[in-house]
C-alpha cells in the first residue's frame, strides 16, 4: 500500500488530495470536493499534463510580442521543448486572438494559439 498527498490544481479551491494506492495499483482518492479532484489525482500520478503559456515575437505589431498558449494541455515533460520551439519563431502582425501560431508543437499534436489581438503599425 502506497500513500501520496497532492494539491488539486483544477480550480482555486486547491483541495488537498490523499491517494491510497493498493498493491494492485488501484487508487482511492479522498479530500476532493468535486469529481474533478479524483480525475486530477489519477492523471497527475500517471500522466501529468499542463497548459503552456508564453510569448512569440511579432514583426510590425503595436507590441513586439504576442501572448500564446497551447490549445489543450500537453504532457508536463514536453514543456521545455515547447518553449524552445516558440523562441525560434516570429509572426507578422496583425495577430487575432485564437489564431493558430504554430501547429503540432514539439510533436504533441497540439496547436499553439494567440491569446490576444496585436494590431499592425
Amino acid at each position, binding site marked *: 500500500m502506497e500513500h501520496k498527498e497532492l*494539491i488539486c*490544481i483544477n480550480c482555486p479551491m486547491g483541495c488537498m488530495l490523499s491517494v491510497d494506492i493498493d498493491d494492485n495499483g488501484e487508487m482511492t482518492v479522498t479530500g476532493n470536493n468535486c469529481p474533478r479532484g479524483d480525475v486530477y489525482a489519477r492523471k497527475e500520478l500517471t500522466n501529468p499534463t*499542463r497548459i503552456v*503559456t*508564453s510569448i512569440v515575437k511579432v514583426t510590425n505589431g503595436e*507590441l*513586439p510580442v504576442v501572448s500564446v498558449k497551447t490549445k489543450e494541455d500537453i504532457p508536463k515533460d514536453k*514543456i521545455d521543448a515547447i518553449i524552445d520551439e516558440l523562441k525560434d519563431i516570429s509572426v507578422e502582425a496583425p495577430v487575432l486572438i485564437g489564431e493558430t501560431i504554430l501547429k503540432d508543437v514539439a510533436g504533441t499534436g497540439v496547436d499553439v494559439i494567440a491569446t*490576444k489581438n496585436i494590431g499592425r503599425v
Partner: protein
Amino acid sequence: MNKHVSILVIGGGPAGLAAGVSAYKAGIKDVLIIERDVRLGGILNQCIHNGFGLHTFKEELTGPEYAARYISQVEELGVPYRLATIVTDLQLSDDGHTKIVTTMDEQGGLTVYEADAVILAMGCRERARGALNIPGERPAGIYTAGTAQYFVNLEGRMPGREVVILGSGDIGLIMARRMTLEGAHVKLVAELQPYSGGLKRNIVQCLDDYGIPLMLSHTVVKIHGDKRLTGVTIAEVDDKLSPIPGSEKFYECDTLLLSCGLLPENELSGQLGVNLSPVTFGAVVNESLETSVPGVFSCGNVLHVHDLVDYVSEEATAAGKHAAEYIQSGIVESAEGGSDEKVTRVITDGGVRYSVPSLLRADHMADLTTIRFRVGAVYKDVDVVTYADGRELARLHKRVMAPGEMEQLILRKSDLISEGVPSEYRITIENKAGQ
C-alpha cells in the same frame, strides 16, 4: 462647459469593464469608462498565464482572453470609453450631489465631467522597495514582480538572469515560472511569513514543477551592489518576524523581484472624502458597494485585493447594477443610511480580518448578499460562524482557510432580519485547535 455623464467609471481593467457593462445593461446608457492606459483590460493584459474565468465562463482562460470577453461586450454594446486618459481630480459639487471629475489626455487636455454617480475601479499597486525598508545599496536590478511581468510579457525583455524573489504572492510565483521558462535561473523564493500568500495551485505549478525552493520565514536583510545588484543577504526570521542573528546567508544574483503585497490605489477616493478601511485600505462600503459618499461606488482591487478576477467581475457587476439603481431611483440619500433607517454593522473578529461589505441596510438588501472576507492566519478544521446580535445564524465548517485566499459567504436577508433588523452582524471563527 463641463460635460454631464450619468455614471463615470474610473478604470478600464476587469472591475471597470464589468461595472460599465453592468450599468449599461441595467439601462443607464450614459456611462463613461476612463482608462489611463492605451488599451482596455488593465493588468490582465500582462497576465498571460491561464487559470482565469473558471468560475465565470466555466473554462480556463489566460488573462488577455478573459479581458477580451469583457472588452468585446463593451464594444458590442457600445459602452463609451476613453483611453490614455487619466483622472487628475475628483471632488464633490457644493450641494454634494454631483461628482466633479477632471481628466487629462494628450489630445484634448483637461476635461471636466459632472457625474451623477462614480464607480471607483482603479485597482491596486504593488508594494515597492521603498515601502519595504530593505537596507543596503540602491543598485539597478530590483523590480516589483509586476514590473518584471510587464517587461517579459509585453515588451519581450528579460530583466535579468540570476533571480531571487522576495515574497510569495501570486505574481511572484507566476514570475518564478515565467522567468525560468525564459531561461533565467530562479534561485529561491523567500517569504517572511510562515505561510505563502499565494494560491496553492501556483505553488504547485510555478515552484514545485520547476524545483524552485520556497523558504518560509525568511527575508532579505541586505542588498549588495554598486551599479547593478550583485547579491542579497537572506536571514531566517523568528515568530515576531525579526531576523535571527547568525542565520544570514549571501546569495549571488543580478535581479531581485518583490512580490510583497498589493495596496488599493485610493488617492482619488481620499480626495473625495470617502471613508477608507484601515485594514483593507479600500473604501468602507454598504451592501450596495456604495461608499460613505452617496452615489460613489467601489469594486475590484481598489475596494479590497482579490485573489481571483472572477470575483472582481462579479463584484463589479453588482456595483454597476447598484449605481444604475441609484440613478434610476432619483433619490439622493446617505450611504450610511437615512436618519430613520437602521444600519447593521458587520463585525469581524476571532481571526477574520475584515469583510466587504461592512454595513448592511436591510431595506436595500436583495434576498441574498455575498459577503467576502479574509482571515489573518492559516486555520484548519474550524467553523466560520455568523451571529445577528448574538443569535447564531449559520455555522460552516472549513477544512482550511489561509490569508492568501478570499473567502465568501452568502447571507440570506430573511435570516438576518427574522427577529428584527439587528445592530450587529458578526462573522467569527470558532473551534480552533485547543479551544
